[in-house]
């Protein structure tokens, strides 16, 4: 996924956004993958985190540790939220411990 894949609702220059993305995306993606084991879902969550960052006018080009912590919290929150929802689907359609084998 590239920084240009995201659409910023706020006015953020592509250069600033690219720098921001390149700086934080790897660590955020790693954290998301700890909760969400599937790549496509993790991609979507990462996208949501950056869209939220844009929406909240959160993107700057300055090094900022509290900023990273906020992004990490957002990534974890969205990851857990997604897995909670998928677990509900899972329980609805299959049960938690299916032992049917016949097809």
């Amino acid at each position: 996924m590239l920084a240009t894949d995201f659409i910023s609702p706020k006015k953020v220059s592509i250069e600033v956004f690219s720098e921001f993305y390149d700086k934080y995306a790897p660590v955020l993606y790693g954290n998301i993958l700890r909760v969400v084991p599937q790549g496509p879902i993790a991609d979507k969550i990462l996208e949501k985190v950056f869209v939220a960052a844009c929406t909240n006018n959160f993107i700057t080009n300055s090094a900022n540790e509290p900023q990273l912590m906020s992004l990490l919290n957002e990534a974890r929150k969205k990851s857990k939220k997604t897995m909670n929802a998928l677990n509900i689907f899972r329980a609805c359609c299959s049960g938690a411990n299916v032992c049917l084998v016949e097809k």
Partner: protein
Amino acid sequence: MPDILRRNNVIITGQSDKVILFAHGFGCDQKAWRSLTPYFTEDYKVIVFDFVGAGNSDITAYDHMRYVTLEGYATDIIEICETLDLSSVIFVGHSVSCMIGILASNRKPQLFSDLILLGPSPCYINKEGYYGGFDQETIDELFEVMDEDYIGWARSIAPAIMNKENGEVLGEELADSFCAMDPAIGKQFARATFLSDNRSDLNKVAVDSLTIQCKDDMIAPVEVGRFVHANIPGNVFELIEAVGHCPHMSNAELTAKTIKGYLADK
């Protein structure tokens, strides 16, 4: 009037005068019953069907207004029974279909002799003085995730939901079963299901009923099953040693034994 039997992909097996009708829950279709129904085909006429939007139902018959609440699905049940000229049907509902069956029987009690409620919940969201198992925020999150590519995601997590005994085949089967619901319809069905509050309908049930509660069910916890039991007049309650929300799939033999035991004791 549309062809009801085609609309709901109604399948009938067995020859008996005694009729047992199985109604699947959210995220499933009639395939969910295929481990359970063989226990009944010798002694009953077995009827399974797909709700509109699930399985091989006629998706063109989907009406957003009709199915905005569970009453629309209850109407489907009534229409199936009336089209087949049935009465005194033993209704087996799973999950949200328990409440659909209750709504149908409250409107037309003469159609049913018994309601077998497998993992029922009259209200999934916690309310003052009531534990439904979910808070509003979790349900809102569920709807938010459903606005994404949830079917693709469900397909991608299907292998992860199997334990070692289940094997690869079941993973594909579950993904296929889940994906047998149209995404847009699935979203509306989810809202009709998880936002429903049918607690006040329980004490109107006028036919015999059995609640089958799994000991560990995240969708319909034991407290909810006991609430259903306490609020339906004359309801029989069975807590079974099955894990999850789908004992008809995870432990069909025990589920069949529990249903047959209840029917034999009448």
